């Protein structure tokens, strides 16, 4: 069964990599370049997985995660963070984040990991 995945990332080439990973896994990835665009996409339709960068213009990943967590219509979605700023992890306390993926990441590992995650959904 094909799942809908939202990737929020201001760096276009990284966004493209994630899209290729989830396409390979047979799912439907969609990209947003900042928190504001991500919220717009979330309001247009439900997603199974959200992967977001933390530092982005207009609206950061932290703000996006908070809004999503507090919005009753957006529950039941698995949330992931993918960031190069691993020091920011402390700020994620209290946010329902399943895993923090540190940049740079290994494609083979992420393929394996998300194949399992998506199979369990």
């Amino acid at each position: 069964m094909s799942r809908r995945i939202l990737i929020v990332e201001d760096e276009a080439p990284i966004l493209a990599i994630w899209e290729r990973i989830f396409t390979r896994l047979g799912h439907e990835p969609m990209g947003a370049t900042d928190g504001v665009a991500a919220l717009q996409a979330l309001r247009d339709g439900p997603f199974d997985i959200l992967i977001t960068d933390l530092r982005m213009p207009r609206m950061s990943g932290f703000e996006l995660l908070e809004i999503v967590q507090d919005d009753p219509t957006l529950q039941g979605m698995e949330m992931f963070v993918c960031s190069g700023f691993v020091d920011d992890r402390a700020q994620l306390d209290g946010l329902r984040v399943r895993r923090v993926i540190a940049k740079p990441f290994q494609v083979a590992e992420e393929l394996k990991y998300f194949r399992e995650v998506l199979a369990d959904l």
Partner: protein
Amino acid sequence: MLRSAQVRYTLIGVLFGFCFPLGATLLDAYLRGLPWTRSGLLQIQADQPLLWVIDTAPLFLGLFALFAGRRQDELMASVTEALEINTQLEAENRELAVAARAEPDVREELIRTAVGEGQVRLGDMLDTTPSCFKIVDRAGALLFMNRRGLDLIEAEDLSSVFGANVYDLVESSHRAKFVSFNERVCDGETGSLVFEIVGLNGTRRWMETWAAPHQLPQGERVQVAITNDISERVTVQEQVERQQRELRQAQKLAAVGEFAAGLGHEINNPLAIISGTAGLLVAEYADGEQPEADRVRQDLEKIEATAIRIRNIADGLKVLTREDDESPRVVVNLSEIVRQTGELCEPLLRSNGVRFEVDVPDHLEVVTNPVQVEQVLMNLISNALHAVRDLEDPWISVRAGPADSGLVRLRVTDAGHLLDPEVIERMLDPFFTTKDVGEGTGLGLSVSRALMESLGGLLTFDGAAENTTFCIDIPSEVT
């Protein structure tokens, strides 16, 4: 005894008093035709009872004169006493005036007295002078040196070093300039020189000398010099310079550190592009797929370009490590300086949602120390970031602007409006800060301004601009 007015006056009074009975008796004898004999005069005395009264005249006049004389004596005594006190006061005043005069005058007077009395010889005086006094000929041979000088070069006495070459005492790296200085003085110039010596026992000292030419009786011109040990001053100066260098370095780290901290992480993004793109290709081949040749080439190109991007970011980091004090001013393209700074600043600006606009033409050349200008630019951008990051639409721009001839201007503008006149007036002062304790030292702008001035440029605030604008003026020609 006759000096006493009391006695003199009494004597005169008594004598004058005798004139009355004597005159009266003689007048009576003449009128009555009596002879001027003792019996005749006694007869008159016996006949005229009034004469008994007149006879007492010497007594009364004598007494009257006695009192007048005593009074005169008393007056004279007090006048004499006053005169004596006056003389004494005048003497004391003279002493006080001498003491009140400047000490050197007194000393000079003492010396003049001593010299006059043959107690002081010129040689002794030179030996007690706290400066080195020396005479050196054109070839550098020592002809005379006082005690202080001998102590400084660590020599026992003059005879042990007389005629020796003083060039040997000068530290080798200072020798050439000392030799040329000595020759110039012997040619008739007057001047001063700072140099280092190594004493006969190996002690190094910084010396400052004032020298003038002097013609010897046989016609040869030599150098006469007074030299002082300034080692302590030089040490203190070196310490101050070192501290200033350290302060600049610390300031640089503070200015750059903020951006550099984010930079290390920022490298993780391009690394993710490289590892991700390569990883996808690996996954495709591992699964036995034959990816399209065009797409593979695109991926490889992306990997290559991203590696170059990482190199540029790392280039920006050299501002941290390069020893900037020694690097000379060079001709450099202004847009290159701005680009380097942008590489370093952009990640942090982007993650704070700040738009960063650059408009600097490619052809503008400046003569400067690029690392220091980058540092100043970074400092201004850091301040701007703090000012605008909470605004609705935050932006910072760096543009070239019109400047006085010989200068090129960079205008660093942000979305904010700096209006507080107190802040505008004082913001270029050291330790002035609007940031909270622990957020800034308040040295940024003042150090930046000092840096620009040391580079022959300027750092100013453009109060007329609509948005907060700082101007950096950089020389475009060798000054």
